[in-house]
């Protein structure tokens, strides 16, 4: 009987595999209904602008999620990368070196985190809690006692446009998409998430995958740091402060299983990033204050996690 029921619902099951896409389409529809004629190319550009940085960091973070871990220090890492890039620009006046510095800092943070995780054999989550504290302090050190550091707006004005930011997102997404879906690294990441013991017995190196995943995330963090400066060339103590949480929420909204594994998909990052930006706009359009907005998003987040993990609740704890 159960089999008959399952067969009956097999078509529906295929549809529900795309539930995060339906959610995104629903949000687009509500936004359209709410805003109507006031939607312009400019306002659409704003939504892309707000989603790009979250989407880039979340795309890299999918690698960590895919083997059942998560990193809460990504926002602070992005802030550090952005600040170093500002300092680099102010010393060299070179946009290229600024971008390079941001990526190098992002990758360096990733390498340090992964090596510590491997050497100390600590759960990634626990390590990133410590890193969050260290990186937040580093932000204050880089500020050097000032309330903000900045570069001239004119220096990056040429890059402050939607096509350039979309180009960066698409390039990074394609790189990650290829690695995640068509290389051994991606397959092994998902295998580790699906069954760590079987993966280990099959010769999959947890250490190698962890280091590679963090390097890939580091590239995303570096790009996000660079884009953060382009977006707002004056950085302070709270720069990118909400990014870490936004990335987590985006990945969950995008349909990524918290336990990782075979059902992990790189598209969750982009779908989720655009979903939370649209959700934010929809809630604002309904007259929610920012405080109510945060509460609504938090409740929705909890509900999505609750429903999505009913079957494998035991697997979602950090391992």
């Amino acid at each position: 009987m159960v089999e008959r029921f399952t067969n009956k619902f097999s078509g529906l099951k295929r549809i529900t595999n795309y539930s995060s896409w339906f959610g995104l389409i629903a949000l687009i529809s509500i936004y359209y209904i709410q805003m109507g004629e006031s939607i312009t190319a400019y306002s659409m550009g704003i939504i892309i602008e707000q989603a790009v940085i979250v989407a880039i960091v979340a795309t890299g973070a999918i690698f960590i999620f895919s083997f059942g871990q998560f990193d809460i220090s990504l926002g602070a890492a992005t802030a550090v990368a952005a600040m170093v890039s500002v300092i680099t620009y102010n010393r060299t006046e070179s946009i290229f070196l600024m971008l390079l510095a941001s990526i190098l800092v992002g990758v360096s943070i990733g390498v340090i985190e992964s090596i510590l995780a491997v050497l100390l054999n600590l759960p990634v989550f626990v390590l990133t809690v410590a890193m969050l504290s260290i990186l937040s302090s580093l932000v204050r050190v880089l500020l050097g006692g000032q309330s903000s550091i900045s570069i001239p707006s004119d220096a990056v004005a040429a890059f402050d446009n939607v096509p350039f930011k979309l180009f960066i997102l698409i390039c990074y997404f394609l790189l990650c998409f290829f690695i995640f879906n068509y290389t051994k690294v991606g397959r092994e990441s998902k295998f580790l998430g699906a069954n760590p013991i079987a993966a280990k017995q099959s010769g999959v190196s947890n250490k190698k995958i962890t280091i590679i995943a963090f390097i890939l995330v580091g590239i995303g963090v570096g790009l996000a740091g660079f884009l953060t400066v382009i977006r707002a060339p004056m950085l302070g103590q709270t720069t990118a402060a909400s990014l870490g949480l936004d990335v987590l929420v985006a990945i969950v909204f995008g349909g990524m299983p918290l336990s990782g594994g075979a059902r992990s998909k790189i598209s969750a990052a982009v779908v989720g990033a655009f979903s939370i930006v649209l959700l934010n706009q929809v809630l604002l359009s309904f007259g929610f204050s920012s405080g109510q907005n945060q509460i609504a998003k938090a409740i929705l987040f909890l509900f999505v996690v609750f429903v999505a993990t009913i079957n494998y609740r035991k697997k979602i704890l950090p391992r």
Partner: protein
Amino acid sequence: MNKCLNKIGLLVFSLLLIGLLAACNGDSDPQTNGVDNGANEEQDQGPTQKIGVQIYDATDSELIAFRRYYQDYIEDNYNVEFLFSDSLDTAEAERTSTENFINQGVAAIISFSDSDRMSVIQMTEDAGVYYAIGAGTLSDEQLDMLSDNEYFVGSIGPSLAEEEEVGYDMAKHYIEQGYTNFLLYAGGYPFVDMHLMRTHGMIRALEEVGVTYNAREDGQIGTFESDEYTINTVYGFPDDSGAFFGTVAERVNEPGLEVILTAGLGVEFFGTALAQSGQDIRMGTVASFEDAYYEGFSAGQVDYLAGKFSSSIGPIFAAVYNAINGDMEVVRNNGNPFRIDQGYWIATNVDEFNEMYEMSNSTENPAYTKELLDMVIKSENPDTDYDNFESFVQSYSFDEITNLQD
């Protein structure tokens, strides 16, 4: 099968969420939810115009007073709805707030935030949204750059020269009374322009009576030399370590201290130390006519305040209201955006303070009432022009506004 059912649950929840949001729609629209005020019902001016207000600190009591004036008085008397931002402490937050306001269809933004103002002004021009500076000023260079921006309305606020004068007057007030032992709090000197200028004003007043000021090469507040006067300094803001308040307490308890002069945040940063010192110390500060200073004056901690009043942001609303009504020429200074100075109310004793405090905090009869604002709003007074507007803004003193009301 369970996984399939879970996903169905997710889908159902999404639909429920949509329904819930749709249900909320009716509550969010002041025109349809039955809570709109009588004044709006009487007006037949089309849809309510949304105006975004950007604030640097949602918990700042001065900004809370500003918010109360806009939401409890202006919204009741004009066909507008104010949307307030969160605390905008970075350029990134300021930009996101601007984007959100534009997407919510605001007709104008009044800003009390200045993290990356020129970029925001550029964004609002691109989006066709009017922008006005609610408190603050622009440099000559910035104003020149914005001369062709048809969506930049202008700025009202103390000029940097006015800030310097406020610091000078405050220090001179105590020097003339014969006090010789001072503690100067320089706030965000040299990074915060208004603190820098107020402190420079205090230094100028002291130099006039023979005090030698030795500036530091690193730009931080320097030291003072005088046979007759004793001057100590504190600068900066509190941090997590608590060191700031330790320094404040140490300085306040220096023997012989008579007067604390602060470039801002007097009661907030010195109130506790003053209360604990038990000494008869005077305090002059630049802040606003708000509850903390009512307590400060009542307790005898503060006896000089150069302060903003809550409806001081009325004229900038009038300018923005003209702009969104299509009467931009009323607020064009020879075709250019305006920059008009608006100074502070000065209270030098508790009676003066109480009188000003009462008017500042009234939402029934604020300093800038509808009757006064209508004088410079074209749709209410067709004869008004830019000259009227400019002189109206410049008549900001307590006595001048009281006379206008009479």
